Structure formats: structure tokens, C-alpha cells
């Protein structure tokens, strides 16, 4: 078991009323799964993803990640945990505009204090694997959306995370580019055994996953 959510509640207080963002969510994720989270706007998909990614907290319930009780961890430990095991892919890529493709890929390694030679090898490997060697010295603004997302995924993968969290990874892409990205996810999941949780609006993209979770008003349906 990779992670387990038990009775997770998250709410905000607005005008004296408690509005639930997540309500009684229970979820078990095993290693090697490919899960799609679906639901209309405002149903809590991204919130759930952020809770899983430990970027956001929750108000009630238990969260276990690889034997660790996330709900009882201090902020700092939580941050260390996600930094080590989780890679993030964003709808709007969130590449650093001032860095080239190569440098963007290298950055997580810098923070994990890899040696220069190791970094070089890992970056080269990743460029190769994603077929973007020719783009390594370009800046994000010089790439198409699909290519940027490719770099985004490569960056999420470079430090070998156990889990990839993708928040509408194809949301800003046209259908051909989107398909390419989904194929890539599928390949990563099947061939490399990477666990993936994605948030998506599209039935077609959701179908790439092995399991679909539907949310409505913060509840699983």
C-alpha cells in the first residue's frame, strides 16, 4: 500500500457557515496504480490532489503515506516526505522561465544535493528518454505547450518519485498533444511502474487510468 486516506474532511468557514471542500474521503492507493480523479468544477478534485501531495492540509481524518502518519507530522517533515517521494505535474507546466530546459531538469537534483557528474548523467538520461535532447538549451518560451509539458513531466520524474500527481496535465494542450502526454503517462505506469494520480475533465483521458474516482461537492460518488 502506497497511501491510505481515512475519513478526510476539509472545510472553510464563510459567513458563519461551514463549507466542505472534502467530505469523508476514503481512498487506498497501491503502488503501480494509475488513478483518474473526475468531477465538475468546484467538486474538490484539485483540493484532494493537493491534500495527497501534502501541499495543503486537512481538518479531520487520517492520512498514511508509506507507513508514515501524515496527519500527525510536523510541516517540515511533511515537506521532506513529499519532496522525496512525490513529483508534481501542473496544468500550466510551471517551468522556470529564466532557465533552459536542461537547467529546469537539473534543479530538483540541485536541491537534493546530487554531485555534478551524477546530475549530468541523470539529465542526459532524461533528455534522451523524452527525446528532447535537441531542445536542451532552449528556454520554455521557445517551446510549444506540449513540449513544455513534456519537460514538466521529465522534471517531475528525474528524482525517481514513487508517485506522480498531475493536475489536469492536458488542460492547456490541444488534443493531439494531450494524447501524446497521456500515452506517455500510460507507458510510464506500465513499463516503469510509476504510480500516477491525475485530475482530469475528459472521459477520454480518464480512461487511460486503471481506476476512476468521481467527486461531487467534495464527496466520492
Amino acid at each position, binding site marked *: 500500500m502506497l497511501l491510505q486516506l481515512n475519513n478526510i474532511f476539509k472545510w472553510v468557514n464563510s459567513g458563519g457557515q461551514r463549507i466542505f471542500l472534502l467530505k469523508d474521503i476514503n481512498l487506498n492507493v497501491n503502488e503501480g496504480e494509475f488513478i483518474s480523479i473526475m468531477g465538475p468544477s468546484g467538486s474538490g478534485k*484539485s483540493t484532494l490532489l*493537493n491534500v495527497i501531495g501534502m*501541499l*495543503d492540509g486537512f481538518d479531520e481524518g487520517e492520512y498514511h503515506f508509506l507507513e508514515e502518519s501524515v496527519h500527525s507530522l510536523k510541516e517540515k517533515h511533511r*515537506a521532506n516526505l513529499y*519532496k522525496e517521494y512525490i*513529483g*508534481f505535474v*501542473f496544468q500550466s507546466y*510551471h*517551468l*522556470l522561465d*529564466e*532557465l533552459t530546459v536542461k*537547467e529546469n531538469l*537539473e*534543479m*530538483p537534483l*540541485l*536541491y*537534493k544535493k546530487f554531485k555534478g557528474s551524477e546530475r549530468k548523467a541523470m539529465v542526459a538520461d532524461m533528455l534522451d528518454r523524452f527525446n528532447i535532447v535537441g531542445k536542451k538549451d532552449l528556454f520554455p518560451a521557445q517551446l510549444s505547450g506540449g513540449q513544455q509539458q513534456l519537460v514538466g513531466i521529465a*522534471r*517531475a520524474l528525474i*528524482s525517481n518519485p514513487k508517485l506522480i500527481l498531475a493536475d489536469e496535465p492536458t488542460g492547456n494542450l490541444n488534443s493531439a498533444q494531450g494524447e501524446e502526454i497521456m500515452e506517455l503517462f500510460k507507458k510510464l505506469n506500465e513499463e516503469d511502474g510509476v504510480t500516477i494520480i491525475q485530475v482530469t475533465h475528459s472521459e477520454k483521458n480518464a480512461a487511460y487510468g486503471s481506476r476512476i474516482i468521481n467527486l461531487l461537492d467534495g464527496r466520492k460518488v
Partner: protein
Amino acid sequence: MFKNYLKIAWRNLLRNKGFSLLNIIGLSIGLAVVTLIVLWINFEVSYDRFHENNDRVYQVNNQYPVDGEIWTWNSTPKIMASVIAKDYPEVENVSRYNYEDTFLFSIGDKRIKSTGSIVDPDFLKIFSFPLVEGNIETVLKDVNSVVVTQKLAEKLFGNESPIGKILKVDNADSFTVTGVLKDLPRNTTFNFEFLMPWAYLHQKGWNDDYWSNNSVATYVMLKSGTNYEIFSKKIKSLRERYDKESPEMETLLYPFERTYLYSKFENGIEVGGRIDIIRLFGIIAGIILIIACINFMNLSTARSEKRAKEVGVRKVIGAKKGALVSQFLGESILISSIAAFLAILIVWASLPSFNTLIERELSLNFTDKWFWLSAVGIVLFTGVLAGSYPALYLSSFKPVSVIKGVFKKESTLVSPRKVLVVLQFSIAIILITATIVVNQQLVNVQDRDLGYNKDKLVYIAMEGTIKEKYPLIKEALLNSGAATAVTRTVSPPTENWSNSWDIGWKGKKEDDKTLILRFTADTDIVKTLGLELVAGRDLDHIRFPTDSTAMLINETAMRHMGFEQPIGQQVEDMGRQWNVVGVVKDFILTSPFQKIEPIIIHSAGEWTNFITLKLNGEYKTAHNIASLSQIFKEYNPEYPFEYEFVDQQYAKKFNDEKQTGQLVSLFTVLTIFISCLGLFGLTSYMAENRIKEIGVRKVLGATVQSITTLLSVDFLKLVLISIVLAIPVSWYFMTKWLESFAYKVTISWWFFALAGVLALAIAFLTVSYQAIKAAIANPVKSLRTE
């Protein structure tokens, strides 16, 4: 990692050229000003610090209560040194220093005037002025020996060795050069090109043993190990044993190295001196540095919204807070390094004009390791100070809020950024007020009635044969038509060389110790200076042969002496009875900033040192001077003709205040400039942040004018708060500053009003450019960007 930071920082700089430029220019101007001030302070503080024995060298001061107030001064009787040498075994060396005097040196046909002093042989042992040639034990042993500096030696002898050469001094005595001194460093209070032995004073009959004639400086060097506290108690009562007239006068040893910066005494207590002005500019340097750093912080945090995404992404992929803090600090250190480099260029380029302004010769010493150490220090300090707030602010962003795009900018009533702007503008307003007050004070005092007419007034030192041929010269001057009136004076009309409380008149109170200034003149003094007679007549030895005991007094003296009928009153001074023949309107003899003292004018031509004359207004000055030159060449052929204009000398009395005024104005302009750069940057970011709001407002029908007002008002409010804060502070400081002047401008409400209006106007100009630009932009464009 470091390389990565550097890369990001560099690319960020290039990408935001406008922002970077504002930031770097502001910081580099700030750093340049700080560097200039620090160079100057460094130089001032180094004054007289190079003497090896400084820890045991003292200047001999006197202390004496006058009118219930303790007065301290540093001139001593000539005999003091020999008494100290005889009575106090703790003293290793003692030397007198006669006030610098100008002599004419001749060798062959060469005639060179040079300024130097007469000292005891110990002088060179007390002070570290190294000899390049000559033996320190013997150079000043012989009566007619002279020690010259390298500069004077070169002027006199060119490249030949000066040792053993014979010089004629003032066309009378022959001197042998026995030693050559290394040229004096610039940071010494002494100013001599040659030294002569004290024995020469004896030979000329210029020495005297009067305890009441305090006219030379005396320096002592204690034996090492002597306890200063104990010794100063011992020497305090020296005069009790010798001085019949004022045995209660105290003798005081004052550390020599403090004389340049501190030697201002009030009521017997050291109260500062030149150090005050140094502290003032030190504070100004600090303030400018802070303002420049505030700018940096403000601009960086204002831009932080733009970099929030970067922070969020970095955090999500593994950056710890520490790593981010060091990244942003690194960036600000990079900017401050660039700014420091620019600052050095600015300093290098502006140093010559700054030197002219402060009348010093400062230089950048690139080979000095302290220069580089302090440069690196200042870069790190500024970088960390300026970068700390943005670094901590940026690195504390929560990644999720940034990633989600719900990052909210601060909108609290009292945000740090607003506080910083208020602080900046308060300082700017204080400086504006200071500029106004200093310059008003200057104008006010310059406009003060001098009491005589300084135009076309010239004085000439009576050297060589001038003194004995005075009557002939006076006649020749008047006959030539170059001068309309000629007289002789003891000192230039802008200087006072003698004063005393030991002056008697009928009805003087027993305990009256008020100092009365002495001036000595000859026939036609009133006519020449253009003094105004209140009663009586001008001095005139021709019509009144008894005028050798005549005296003029000024109005203040008349009031002080309580003369109802001043003419015919007797005044006793210098062992003579003087007959008051006239009263002149008060005139300024010493400082135009102080109140006018009582002045008596002896009529004693034989005591005078200068010819003072009024040029004929009908001719051009150049023509008059040519005639003068011809006459003096004829009567005093051995000496070059030299003269001074009284108005130019009088203008010099304002030098210090003028300099202060110019420096304060300069720093004020720079402070305002830096503050405006910051304000400009802030407004542009604010306008950018509110671009959607502006768009919506315009779509709903807002006019350009109303939007400009909306955007400007926020900042102008801050300036208004600054004005309210700055007024009491500047009022306090300027009142303090004016306290040291007796004749001063009254601080008026319009000084503050002007400063406030200026600050508002400058702020408005700065802000409105961006505000109008944002207001006239097409709303469709701005709305589409969201």
C-alpha cells in the same frame, strides 16, 4: 547550486531591465555618496594620528574663569616651556611653536617667500616629521641654522643638495641649511615649510619673559610610564609660583591628537569641535545608505508577486526555505556588487569636484587592502540588509497558494512597504528643511551690515623697507590717484589679533572681566574703511599732534564702559592713558555669525603691520593695482608685491558654513533623487497590479483624470504623513544647529511649508507619470490579459 542562482539572478536582471536599472542606479548613487563621505571622514579622523609618541604628547592649555564662565585657550607665554623643562622631571621633551610666519628667502637672484615656524630643538623629537638629511640632535642647535622641507629645498636649490647652503632671510640674516625634512603629510595641523631654532628669536630680540603675553603654542612629551592623571594635577598650579598677575590661571595638558577634532571648550569642558560636523555627515551617510537600501527592499518586494510562481515551483520540487533565502540574498548581493562597481566609477569620476568642494585632496587607494576589505564588507552589508526583507518575505510564500494562483498581495493599512516610503520621505523632507535653513542663515548673515565699506579695500603687509618708508609711500599712493585714502592697521580689517580684559576706565567694575578687542590704526582709519562716526572725529596725526594717545571706540564699547559723554574720556591700556576722540558705529571685526564685541582702536602707527587703502573707484582695478605695484617695487625692491582684497578675505569667513550648505544641498538632492527612483518603481508596479481594476473602472466609465487621482492619492497620503512626522524633527535639529550662532535667522513657518510643498510636488511628478500612463491605456488590452 551557486551557479544556478547566479544564472537565475543574472537572467532576471536582464529580463527586467527597467527595474534593474532603477535598483542599481539608486543603490550605486547611495553607495557612491557613502564612499565619498567615508573617505572624507577617514581623512579627517587621521589628522595628526601619525606621530609615534602621540600617547604622551600634549598641548599646554590655559584655563581661567571670565565673567563666571571658564575659558580655555591654547596659547602660552614664551617662558612657560623653560619653566616646565626646569621644574618637571616627568617631561622628556618640551617645545614651543611660534605661530607660522612668512619670511623672504634669497639665494643669488632667487627670492622666495615661504611660511614656517620657530621652534625649540626638541620639536622634531616630539613630533614624527622625519629628516631626510641632517642629524636630529644638531639640526636646530646653531642660531642661524634652518631646516627646510623637500618641497622648499627644491624650490630654492633645484636638484642640488641643500645641506650647508647659505640663505639670506628677510635680507638681513644669513642661515645655513642643516637639515631636510620629508614633506609634511596632508593630514597634519602644522603648516610649515621650514623650521628655525628658538635662539633666533633671542638674537632678534623678539623673545620676552612676560607671563601675560600668551602668544606661542607649547607642546610637551612626557617620559614613557608617566601617569597622566597624576602629572596633570601636579602641573595645574604652575602659574602660582611664577605668574604675578594671574596666579590662579590653571595650566592644563590636552592630548595633542585630540586638538584637531575636539578642541572646542565650553566652560572648561571639551564639547566637541570639528568632530560635530564629521558626526553630522557620518549620520547623513548612514541615512543615505538606509534610504538606498529601503529602495531596494521596496522594489524587490513589490516585484515579488512576479516571482511568487518561481518560489512556489522551487518549493514543490524540493527547495528548503534556507535555500530560497540564500538564493534571494545572493541575488541582492549580486546587485549590490554591480552597484558597488558603478559606485566606484562614480566616486572616481566625482572625486576631483568633491575635493574642490571640501578643500581636501582625497584619493581612492586601490592598492590598499583595507579599501578592498571595506568594499567587500559594504557590498555584503548592503546586499544582506537590502535583501533580507524580500528574501524572507518571498521565501515564506506557501507553495499551494502560489501554484493555485490565489496569491494575495498585502492590502493592510500599515504595510512595511508604506512605512518604508514614509521613512524615506520624512528623511528627504528633513534634509530639504535643513537645506533651506542653512542657506537662509548664510544669506541672512551675508546681508548683515558690516559697519564699513569693504569694496575696493586692499591691504598690504609691511615687509622689508615699507615700514620705514611709510610716509613716502602714502604720499606716493595718494598722488598716483590709485588710492583715495591710506592708513596703517595692526591686522587686516577682517582679523583681530589681540584682546584683553585688563583695560581700565573711570567707573569700571572691579570684577569686570569682559574681553575687549584691540585694534590699532593710524590717521584716516575712519575715512579709509568707511566707518561711520557716531561722535567725535577720525584719527589725524597731522592736525592733532597729540593723537599719538588718541583712541576710537565702537558703540558696544561705549555702552559697556557706560560713557554718557564718550569724547574726552580716558582709557588705560598697555601702560598708557588713551584719550577717546571718536565713537564709530559697530562693525564686524571677527565673526559675522556672532554678536559684536566691544572694540577699542589705538592710534599708534608704530604698532601697525599692514597698509590698508581704498582704491580709486574712477579707475579700473587692474590699473590701480598696476600703479600700486610700481610704487611698492620702487620703495621695497627686494620683495615681490603682494596684496589682498578685504572683500575676498571677508568672504572666507563664510567658507565653513558655505561648505556645509553646499554639502547639505548636494546630499539632499541625491536623497530626493534616490527616493524618487524608489517611488517611481513602486508606482509602476502598483499600476501593473491594479491593471485589471483600472480596466474595469474604465469600462464602467471612469475618466483618465479620476483614475490618475485614484492612483496618485495613495502615495501622496504617505508623503503628507511624512511631512507631519518630519516637521518637529527638523525643527528640533535646526534649532540646535542655530544655537551656535549669535546672529541667526529665525525659523519661520514657510521653511516647513516650502519643504512640504516641494516634497509633494516632486512625489506627484514621479507618481503621476505612471498613473497617467496606466490611466490612458486601452481597457480592452488590460482586461484581456487576465
